[in-house]
């Protein structure tokens, strides 16, 4: 009898006898399902956060911030720096031949949450004229754009959904005057943070500011970054530095991603370890309960390697339903579930790669869990079977 025929036959016996040992079988499935479910949920949280934050990141967009500023809010750039930065090489020009380098400012203050009437802060951002050249992902969902010079703003749809007073036509008292909400917008694929936008100079004069926070620059191609960065470094009087948009977003995401990574890898590994131990125990028990059968098989000529292989295949087959159950459960419970740790809310994304990772994880658990019991199965002395008969 050749090896493959033996393995196929053994696997068939293993599977057809599974119902007789359903409790042991269920232990493996439930253990793996719990471990995989938790892993998938945590990975989905990380993926969701990433998707939400990175969805609109462009490789050809650069944020110019003051040196050492750890976030755009803490950055400070003087008014006269804007035209100087605009003249640097590597910057894309619009149809009128002007550089796309737009000053931005932001302030944040409290608004009232619709859910419980409590305070929640939102960002009011100011953008320069022609900001649509720099923010092609911006699109209005209702109303119109703000008029520079007037106390008008547009709000992101997320703000309108979460906070009071951001519907088109609403008046908001801010900085000693009434501001009118004239439109609502979305940014490309992701809803992003709750924010409102107005004209940057209107914002600065209303809030008593005399400088900008950042300058957003569009490069003529993603490869021009080094050119611009070098030109900025060459003139220390600027006291600014250029950062890729991706880098700025990644820094702002660091605390959240750090926490999620810790939870994912720490908890995921430990749960997998526990599930593997459970699988080892169950498979040992299965092998023990089949001692006579296995010894008989060896007596009639089944090889050691084919028995080891068949047990390993069995343990992987046992782990698979667990993996699928865990992934499906996590998907049912959490996909689209909005989480908001650190006040940054996003939807959990159970994506195919994550399910792939989960299945790989489960395969590993099955394989490692099956190894020792398989070796024991192959070592049962043939005489045991003969004595028992």
């Amino acid at each position, binding site marked *: 009898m050749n090896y493959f025929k033996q393995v196929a036959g053994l696997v068939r016996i293993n599977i057809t006898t599974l119902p007789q040992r359903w*409790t042991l079988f*269920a*232990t493996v499935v*439930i*253990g793996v399902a*719990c*471990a995989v*479910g*938790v892993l998938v*949920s*945590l990975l989905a949280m990380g993926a969701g956060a990433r998707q939400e934050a990175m969805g609109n990141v462009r490789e050809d967009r650069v944020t110019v911030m*003051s*040196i*050492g*500023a*750890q976030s755009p*809010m803490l*950055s*400070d*750039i003087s008014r006269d720096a804007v035209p100087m930065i605009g003249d640097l090489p590597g910057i894309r020009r619009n149809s009128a031949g002007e550089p796309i380098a737009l000053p931005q*400012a*932001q*302030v*944040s*203050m*409290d608004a009232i949450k619709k859910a419980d009437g409590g305070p929640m802060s939102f960002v009011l951002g100011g953008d320069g004229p022609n900001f649509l050249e720099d923010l092609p992902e911006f699109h209005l969902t209702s109303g119109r754009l703000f008029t520079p010079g007037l106390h008008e703003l547009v709000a992101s749809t997320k703000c309108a959904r979460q906070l009071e007073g951001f519907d088109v036509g609403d008046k908001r008292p*801010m*900085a*000693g005057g009434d501001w009118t909400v004239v439109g609502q917008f979305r940014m490309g694929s992701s809803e992003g943070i709750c924010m409102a936008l107005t004209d940057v100079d209107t914002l600065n004069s209303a*809030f*008593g*500011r*005399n400088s900008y*926070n950042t300058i957003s620059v569009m490069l003529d191609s993603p490869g021009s970054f080094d050119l611009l960065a070098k030109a900025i470094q060459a003139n220390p009087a600027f*006291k600014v*530095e250029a950062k890729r948009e991706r880098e700025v977003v990644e820094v702002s995401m660091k605390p959240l991603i*750090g*926490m999620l990574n*810790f*939870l994912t890898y*720490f*908890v995921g590994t*430990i*749960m997998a*370890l*526990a*599930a593997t*131990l*459970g699988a*080892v*125990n*169950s498979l*040992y*028990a299965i092998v*023990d*309960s089949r001692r006579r059968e296995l010894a008989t098989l060896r007596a009639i000529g089944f090889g050691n390697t084919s028995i080891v292989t068949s047990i390993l295949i069995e343990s992987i087959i046992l782990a698979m339903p667990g993996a699928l159950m865990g992934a499906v459960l996590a998907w049912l419970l959490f996909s689209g579930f909005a*989480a*908001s*740790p650190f*006040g940054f809310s996003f939807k959990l994304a159970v994506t195919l790669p994550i399910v792939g990772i989960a299945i790989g994880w489960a395969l590993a658990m099955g394989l490692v869990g099956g190894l020792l019991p398989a070796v024991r199965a192959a070592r049962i002395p043939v005489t045991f079977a003969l004595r028992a008969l």
Partner: protein
Amino acid sequence: MKYLPLIWSGIWRKPGRTILIFLQVMIAFALFGVLQGLRTGTQTAMANIRADVLFVRAAVRGGAALPRAVLEPLRDVPGVRDVTFVDTLQGTYQKPNQSVFVLAIDASPAWLTMLSDFMTVQKKDLDALRDSRTGVLIDPFMTQKFGWHVGDKIHLTSATLQANGSGNWTFDIVGNYVAHGEDPSVIIANYAYLDEGRVRDKGTVRNFFVSISDPHQAAAISASIDHRFTNSSNGTKTASIREISQQALQSLGDVDFLIHSILSAVLVALLFAVSTMLTQTIRERIPELAVLKTVGFSNRALFILVVVEVCWVCIVAALLGLAVAIAVFPLAKNLAPGLSMPLSVLGVGAIAACLVALAGAAIPAMRAARLPIVDALAGR
């Protein structure tokens, strides 16, 4: 007592199986301990934060800074004991990516006590700071990071410019303080030096700290402070330090839910594993149990025998797991600085272990107790 050897031999009937179950329970409870410790630890830390210190900031962050002159009206608010203020200077040391945050204070004695949640400052250091206009206090971490020592002169580069157009600020290290926060790259300097040096934003501060006599009045006093400035161009937003921390914790609400879900999954998987293994063990031991019954063991005695056996393994393993959790807990400190593992977690863990053991053992033990002797001996 005389049954102890019997229980002991029952536990070690299949050493491999017992060790695996033991490890499984241990791992599960180590995880339980760390996660539960993170949760309870944060809550305990929160409850210890002072409620008698209010934090006053501008209602609009990023807008115009608060004038220092607000100090006097703040002192006049009923219930206020003491007021101090702080401004900040962002700088970098040598390289653009080596950020240093300068906290500019008025060096009043209030700093010795008022911000005990965030830092510890000794009187001699505060006096040294007051006596030296360009002086700064550093956290020992900075000695580690940049090799700074008391007596050194340090040069920082900042976007905040001085009258001569330069962004270079020079400080003399005159003493130490200890920061309790997560980022100790903060040094403490004199407000007067910063305010006289800078061109813009002269006479403004970042925020005020107000200590009050009665922590129960925190909300009322906060409201009356905000109300007082509501119609000025410098609206304020006031809350006690504890309230601010609690709000920050509330935004972690979903993480709390996550931890709960993980722990439930862990315990469910564990319960099932223990129960199945036990069922298997009992099935294998049917002839032995039947012999015990034949020699006169009652149903109840058998039930208790099995339950005690399981509880023993589960509880010892759980306690060991919790001990592991305590040992590895400092590693999680990177995540939430200043946390310590509350001992109550041990109690909760032990109770959870008992519940898992009892629930897992109940059905198999019942089956053992109800064994029909004749069938069992016959191997049916």
